[in-house]
């Protein structure tokens, strides 16, 4: 997948580019809005990460211009402004997703992948990861062919982890996914469910399918 990051802050751009490359994609850095328009960045990439506050030409202008020209490439907006009106004006300009700085790199990677999958095709009703098979239609998990009973919360958590197999999923993303509320408070409301999931999935195994990535979140690591 070709990803472009249009961002004037070199530290953020470098960090994002490195993370995207390490996730196995190609990434180009475009330092300002004018260059992005001149190089047709939106047309020549699969996903574009676009900062809103850019020198010379704002991200929203770049986006509107491209959308007016009929370019449908998925765009994730980055901004330091996080009010509801800011978000609305972003979506009105044609953004597909929106992240407020500072953000977790893991969340950005997950959103890049989700948005790419969403725009490229087919909603799957089955997710597979090694011995795990999740049926979204029947809400059933089978592990090595036998059914494992999960609570709705556990099912929802596992669904997100399996969608992003091999990637870190943050607590905030899980909260948003499970309870439609981006709880970011001191109490870790996810941990208990992760532990219970492990209890159900990891019988007779030494290391868990679900890894805790300290300070970042959780990841499913199944080839």
């Amino acid at each position: 997948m070709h990803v472009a990051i249009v961002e004037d802050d070199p530290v953020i751009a470098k960090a994002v580019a490195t993370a995207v490359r390490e996730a196995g994609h190609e990434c180009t850095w475009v330092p300002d809005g004018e260059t992005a328009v001149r190089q047709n960045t939106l047309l020549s990439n699969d996903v574009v990460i676009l900062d809103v506050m850019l020198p010379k030409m704002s991200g929203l202008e770049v986006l509107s211009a491209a959308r007016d020209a009929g370019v449908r490439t998925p765009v994730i907006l980055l901004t330091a402004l996080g009010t509801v009106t800011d978000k609305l004006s972003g979506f009105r300009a044609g953004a597909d997703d929106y992240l407020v700085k500072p953000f977790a790199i893991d969340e950005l990677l997950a959103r890049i992948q989700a948005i790419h999958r969403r725009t490229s095709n087919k909603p799957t009703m089955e997710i597979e990861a090694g011995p795990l098979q999740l049926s979204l239609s029947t809400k059933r998990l089978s592990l090595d062919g036998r059914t494992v009973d999960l609570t709705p919360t556990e099912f929802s958590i596992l669904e997100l982890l399996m969608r992003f197999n091999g990637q870190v999923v943050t607590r905030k993303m899980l909260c948003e996914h499970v309870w439609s509320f981006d709880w970011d408070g001191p109490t870790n409301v996810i941990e208990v469910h992760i532990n219970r999931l492990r209890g159900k999935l990891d019988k007779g195994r030494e290391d868990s399918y679900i890894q805790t990535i300290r300070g970042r979140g959780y990841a499913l690591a199944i080839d």
Partner: protein
Amino acid sequence: MPWPSIDVPVFRRIPWGSLRIRLTLLNSAAVLLAMLVLLFAVRVGVRTALFNETEQTLLGEVREVAMLLDEFQASSEDVAASRDLLIAELKRKASSHRDRSWFLHLLDGRNTLWASENCPQEIVNFPVDESVTETVRHLGRHRWARRRIDTREGKKLYVRIGMPDAVIEQDVDDLTWFLLPIGIGFTLLTPLAGYWLALRATRPIAGILKTAEKLKPTKLGDRLLTRGTNDELDQLSATINRLLDEVARHVERQQQFVADAAHELRGPLAAMQNALEVATTKNRSLDSYQGTIEEALGETRHLTKLANDLLLLAEVGNSLGSVFNEACDLGDVARQTAAMFGATAEERSIGLTIQTSGQAIVRGDERQLRQVISNLVDNALRFTPDGGRIDLSVESNQAAHEAIVTVADSGRGVEPEHLDRVFDRFFQAEAARDRGDIKRGGGLGLSICRSIVERHGGRISLDSPGVGRGATVTVIVPLRLARRTPA
């Protein structure tokens, strides 16, 4: 000859827009108008009264003449003699009332028997309406009374006594000339008195103005003087003073907030800076670097949370006074929150119960209200030891039109001296400030709750019977008014 110009410097120097001048002009105009109306009314009233009075007098006179003739006829058999006596009497009346210009006229239906020489010709010629015994008439500029007298031999005589209007008009004019100087005096005096009154009335305003001019956003100590009369101006001063108190408090709070925020930001920054500085002083093991980076990452997460909380506070603060249109069921919000924290509480053997009664539907932003209840339950969880209990309840008081949410825990409670400060920004009791604790909060949770609840027109309070005896937070939000359905 051109009109003399009134553009003299005195006129130009008068501040026509000033309240004092306008009050004076208004006062003068009102008094002058009232006086003009009064003068006119007095004149008209006196004139009418005088005419009525005169007509009654004239009527009395003709009746007296009629009675006189009866008397004369009773004492003398001679018709001619008694008529002469009557004419003599009439002559006497004419001469005694000459200065009032009375005129008298005696006739027998068609022919004049006698008339005083000042009797106007048109009245001498004026025909008698024989069907009426007595009448008062008004012709041209004269008025008179007339009465029929029946003589003994069966003839009918008529006597008229009258006077010109001019005599009464003269009286009214005299009165007018008497009142006019008084009126002119008032006319001259009114603006002066008005100006003096306006001066008196506006002097305190000048004082208020003078003090208000000295006020500056940086120097909010000055207050307007009140004179203790409790009149409107005193009330105005008191109101402005209250506003100044409020503004001063607000500014002080804002300054305190900025200082606190800077202080709170400095903590994690210092920790991060020191850790990174130490890491770069010499070559260290990979594990050591990784440890430092993780520490730094932890601090940045804390900073991020802090920045997000500040942003949320600012957002809620900015939108104060805006109207919510969406309905939000607090019972649902509480159930969702309980579901989110349920497993965590269960894991720590904390009994998290939820009780709802009635429909607690309010107008509001569901996300924000969820933030409030989540913050409260999160607080309760952090300060309640394993095995404790947290009771969440939502009820609606239809009579008071309020939804009441309480979060009661059996945790460590709050010291009585801290009770009134728990909603202050960055206030944290010592135990909650432990930096080593990964569950440490930012110190903004409860103030965010208060901002959101107040934005929804509600109020929030925290009660605790003492340390170790739990705490109860009560949130009260006005219920959404039920939309009336047309009958």
